[in-house]
């Protein structure tokens, strides 16, 4: 055990049968460790390469983080499609299994609450981009005098601002409509084109906690909205189902508080 550190992927209810996990971080085996009514999905990672110092060293190494994050996500993705799991964000390291057990016991009430919150639900992502065919009109050209230019420019700016406000209102309505079809919903910061790889401007980065039973209805609603006038000038992109990352965020804060 001195050579290993415990990585916790997520928290599940005890006495549920889990099998067939994909290979975890550093090609380690993933298993379930039960503590009372709760259980953690865990892997034992080699301290050499994945200890606290390695995390500190590699924190600025995006490719290292990506490799770890992908494995972490794959395990949670499998778990979420199989049953209910409270996903933990990275890093999620415990010195040993006893230390993890202490955490699970100390924050048991909050973790059970988190499990109830996401019970039989999954997260869906809906992003809205400004359609490439709906770009701002070109700047005024061919004006005679400075005064004409200023007038035209002022009209142009005003038109752009109105168009932007209108799109913003459409996006707000779509987010609300999808929210009403969800148990919970949240609006995250839009991703920049530099990282999203899209040339279109992102106007909405929404996450929706949707009951498993309502998923089909939710997707139909997305399609309906995409075909409606509400989506004029907009592109909708849906992805999922995701583990409920956006709806378990207070779990770490709680464990921090309880244990710290």
């Amino acid at each position: 055990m001195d050579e290993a550190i415990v990585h916790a992927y997520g928290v599940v209810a005890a006495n549920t049968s889990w099998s067939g996990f994909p290979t975890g971080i550093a090609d380690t085996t993933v298993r379930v460790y039960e503590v009372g009514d709760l259980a953690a999905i865990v892997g034992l990672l080699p301290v050499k390469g994945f200890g606290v110092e390695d995390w500190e060293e590699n924190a600025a190494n995006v490719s290292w983080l990506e490799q770890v994050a992908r494995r972490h996500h794959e395990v949670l993705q499998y778990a979420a499609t199989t049953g209910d799991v409270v996903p933990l964000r990275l890093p999620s390291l415990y010195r040993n299994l006893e230390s993890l057990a202490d955490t699970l016991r100390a924050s048991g009430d909050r973790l059970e609450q988190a499990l109830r919150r996401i019970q039989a639900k999954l997260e869906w992502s809906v992003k809205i981009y400004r359609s490439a065919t709906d770009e701002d009109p070109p700047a005024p050209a061919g004006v005679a005098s400075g005064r004409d230019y200023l007038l035209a420019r002022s009209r142009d700016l005003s038109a752009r601002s109105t168009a932007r406000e209108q799109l913003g209102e459409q996006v707000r309505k779509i987010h609300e409509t999808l929210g009403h079809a969800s148990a919970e919903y949240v609006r995250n910061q839009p991703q920049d084109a530099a990282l999203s790889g899209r040339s279109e401007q992102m106007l909405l980065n929404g996450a929706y906690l949707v009951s498993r039973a309502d998923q089909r209805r939710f997707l139909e609603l997305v399609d309906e909205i995409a075909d409606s006038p509400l989506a004029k000038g907009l592109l909708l992109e849906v992805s999922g189902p995701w583990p409920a990352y956006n709806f378990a965020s207070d779990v770490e804060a709680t464990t921090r508080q309880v244990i710290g």
Partner: protein
Amino acid sequence: MSDAMERWSNDQVALVDLIDRVIGGGVVISGDVVIGIAGVDLVYLGLRLVLAPAHEVEESVALRRRSA
């Protein structure tokens, strides 16, 4: 779950989506002491700086402070 219920735009999850959801906010527990790895938060915030206009980043930092 039917194929029709899985709406992935790509076969592989985009790194930016992974960062959005997986990285940041975690904890390390060594014995009974909780260690936050500041570097990971900094990477997260650094990417956020690229990701978002300045006022939204400040908001994000404030939110993270409140939740810490």
